[in-house]
């Protein structure tokens, strides 16, 4: 019996071993299948189940003003999309979504219906992008499983219209489309990264790995001063509206470094709002101060005077013959706005005598005048990091006509931007150094120290003594010249007024609308700010409309920059003298090349006078000559200045005769002569 039992046990054991062996082989085979043969497919399925690739947002860089105040920043916002195939009833879905997201229900229904059936059927449809947090919260609370939220980024400009032209804006994909946003797109934009996250069955993440490191955009600190910018915009708007001008621009600059403290244009726009169709809206987005050149008019006499001080024996006290208000320039009789037999060079600037400026310009000569105009940076872009910067227009000497020297000496036959004028004025203010306008103060690498933008080495283009003499002469303009309205309370100031007639491209005539401007600096001894104001389409002269804007902006800027006052307060310039503001430069001495398209576009068809020859079909386009009879000289001057009329006065006392008579229309370039008798 025992051997039999032992054999049976052995057989059973063998059977068990075989079963175990077969089982092990089966397991091994299955493992082989799972781990090797079907590995890729199984891995893919597993990844779908518990691996999520998430995009990590890299925010666009924030833009600050020079004091660290936020001017532009990006925030994540939700966008709403749906899978139309999952929507059972498009009408119900459209009703819900339209109600929450303030959309047109009928239009949304059509979109949903089109996307959920027929040839246009698809699995993804944007409903509304970049919705507000309130809309997102309301929609999320509904827990609609067919609604998908995607995170995007939205650019905000918390100060609204402040510095709109300088900052620019972004499109729906958050790419810069104007201003700094466009010019420094590469620096500001962030590159999104991605993270691989392992999730459990409830889609809760428990492990993640950065797959692509996100690269946030670099923050920028501008040289802009928020407070000065605000005041510049406020005063510009008030001046443009009050004087019925078409457009205006202001640049405030620190002459020591070239820092642009404010750059404003009017009309303006809110960069938070998307671009709306329409010519008016398009014009509001022009960066006039940088992109639209104009003929500067009499403010350019500063360049003429500075060139004369450097290249001729003339001194501020040198007497310049002014031909009693008449000069024959290459066969053409030019009349000045006021009759002066002669003036000192300082007074030529103070009184803005055109004939005086022509005489000085002729003393300088074509070649040297051209050289100095170039030295001041005219005719080439300043290099400020803004798109579509205009280089202005300055013809080569070889293209000049005989009378060009006279035109250029008065600020015609040359066109500049407001920014170029501010740069030129800085040369006078800082002792003869040509600065490059600086807009970016510092770049911030994420998590790194700010990199200060270096100030470029200045180029000495004028002798310091020339700059100081010119500065003193410009102070005279404010103290007893055409720029009295630019007088600052508590600060010395220097400047120059300018008025250039605007040429109507459609009617081919010069109008009695002016490009009224003022460029100045303060304090005179150690200038801290340069302010250039340009009002396009003014009926009054620069001294009347642009100088008060300079006063308000410069006063605020000096206060905000903590510049100590260098005068006792309450001292006003000599008011006994009539406040002559007529500084109209004579346009039309010679034929210029066709105007740049930017200027024509900006002026909406009305181009700034370009010193072209007087058109053949000059018409009497107004304004109507008022009745000056019986009025004092001061009253006549004030009234004519207010109307933008050039008046030639003779004698003293009360007005007893005038030509043309009251009520007649003036042709371009025509003066009103008024005879005063005691």
């Amino acid at each position, binding site marked *: 019996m025992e051997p039999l039992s032992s054999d049976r046990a052995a057989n059973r054991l063998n059977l068990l071993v075989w079963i175990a062996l077969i089982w092990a082989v089966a397991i091994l085979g299955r493992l082989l299948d799972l781990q090797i043969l079907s590995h890729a497919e199984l891995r893919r399925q597993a990844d779908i189940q518990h691996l999520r690739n998430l995009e990590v947002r890299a*925010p666009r860089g924030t833009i600050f003003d020079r004091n660290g*105040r*936020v*001017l532009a*920043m990006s*925030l*994540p916002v939700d966008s709403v999309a749906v899978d139309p195939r999952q929507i059972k009833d498009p009408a119900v879905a459209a009703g819900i979504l339209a109600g929450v997201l303030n959309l047109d229900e009928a239009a949304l229904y059509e979109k949903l219906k089109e996307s959920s059936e027929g040839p246009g059927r698809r699995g993804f449809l944007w409903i509304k992008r970049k919705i507000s947090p309130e809309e997102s919260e309301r929609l999320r609370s509904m827990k609609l499983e067919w609604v998908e939220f995607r995170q995007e980024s939205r650019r*905000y400009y*918390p*100060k*609204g219209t*402040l510095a709109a032209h300088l900052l620019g804006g972004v499109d729906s994909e958050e790419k810069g489309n104007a201003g700094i946003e466009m010019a420094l797109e590469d620096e500001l934009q962030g590159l999104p990264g991605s993270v691989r*996250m*392992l999730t459990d069955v409830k889609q*809760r*993440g*428990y*492990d*993640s790995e950065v797959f692509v490191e996100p690269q946030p955009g670099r923050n920028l600190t501008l040289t802009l001063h*928020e*407070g000065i910018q*605000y005041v510049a915009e*406020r005063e510009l708007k008030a001046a443009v509206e009050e004087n019925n001008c078409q457009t205006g621009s202001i640049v405030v600059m620190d002459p020591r470094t070239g820092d642009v403290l404010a750059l404003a244009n009017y009309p303006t726009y809110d960069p938070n709002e998307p671009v709306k169709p329409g010519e008016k809206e398009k014009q509001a987005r022009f960066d006039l101060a940088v992109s639209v050149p104009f003929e500067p008019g009499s403010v350019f006499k500063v360049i003429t005077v500075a060139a004369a001080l450097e290249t001729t024996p003339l001194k501020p006290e040198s007497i310049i013959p002014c031909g009693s208000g008449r000069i024959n320039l290459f066969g053409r009789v030019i009349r000045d706005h006021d009759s002066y037999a002669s003036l000192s060079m300082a007074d030529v600037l103070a009184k803005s005598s055109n004939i005086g400026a022509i005489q000085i310009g002729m003393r300088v000569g074509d070649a040297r005048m051209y050289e100095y105009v170039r030295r001041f940076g005219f005719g080439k872009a300043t290099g400020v990091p803004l798109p579509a910067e205009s280089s202005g227009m300055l013809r080569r000497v070889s293209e000049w006509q005989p009378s060009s020297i006279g035109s250029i000496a008065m600020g015609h036959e040359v066109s500049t931007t407001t920014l170029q004028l501010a740069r030129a004025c800085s040369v006078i203010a800082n002792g003869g150094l040509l600065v490059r306008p600086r807009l970016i103060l510092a770049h911030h690498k994420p998590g790194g120290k700010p990199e200060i933008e270096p100030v470029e080495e200045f180029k000495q283009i004028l002798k310091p003594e020339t700059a100081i003499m010119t500065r003193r002469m410009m102070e005279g303009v404010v103290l007893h010249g055409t720029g009295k309205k630019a007088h600052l*309370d*508590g600060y010395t100031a220097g400047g120059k007024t300018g008025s250039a007639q605007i040429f109507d491209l459609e009617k081919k005539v010069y109008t009695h609308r002016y490009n009224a401007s003022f460029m100045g600096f303060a304090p005179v001894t150690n200038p801290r700010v340069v302010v250039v104001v340009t009002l396009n389409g003014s009926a009054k002269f620069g001294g009347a409309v642009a100088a008060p804007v300079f006063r308000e902006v410069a006063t605020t800027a000096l*206060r905000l920059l903590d510049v*100590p*006052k260098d005068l006792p*307060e*309450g001292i006003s310039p000599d008011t006994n003298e009539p406040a002559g503001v007529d500084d109209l430069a004579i346009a039309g001495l010679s034929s210029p090349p066709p105007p740049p398209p930017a200027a024509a576009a900006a002026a909406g068809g009305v181009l700034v006078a370009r010193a072209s020859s007087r058109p053949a079909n000059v018409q009497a386009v107004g304004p109507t000559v008022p009745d000056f009879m019986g009025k004092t000289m001061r009253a006549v001057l004030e009234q004519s200045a207010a109307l933008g009329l050039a008046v030639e006065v003779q004698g003293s006392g009360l007005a007893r005769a005038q030509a043309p008579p009251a009520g007649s229309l003036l042709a371009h370039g025509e003066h009103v002569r008024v005879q005063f008798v005691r």
Partner: protein
Amino acid sequence: MHTAALVRSSRLRPTPNEDVYFFVKRIDNSRVVRAANPRARQRCWQFLGTGGLITLLLIGLFLPSAYGLFLGYDLEELKSQQKRLLEERSALELEEARLLAPARLQELARARELAPPAAGRVVYLSPGSSAELAWNVKSK
């Protein structure tokens, strides 16, 4: 005949092993004692010890992973919280910037009838002067 048949038919069919009788036989095995087997006991303890050790090893092996898993949940939660807080901070910075917009401040100042100081109302202290003027106190 009929009666005899009825008698036969009324008898029960015998059950299997009907003739086997069981009875209880009392056996006294109180003197039977299990012999001590120290080897078996040793094996038993060895088995228990090995089992325990393997269990501990397995726990030691998997515990960090499990702990890491739970920490992973916490970490991801903290990361999403950090992201949310950063976004909230950005939103607050934006709101602050809106509230401090110069145009808004001017409106508020106008509503409260505040104005920039008039000429002569601002006193600039010379660097060498004492702070008496600023503190509005008389010198002793």
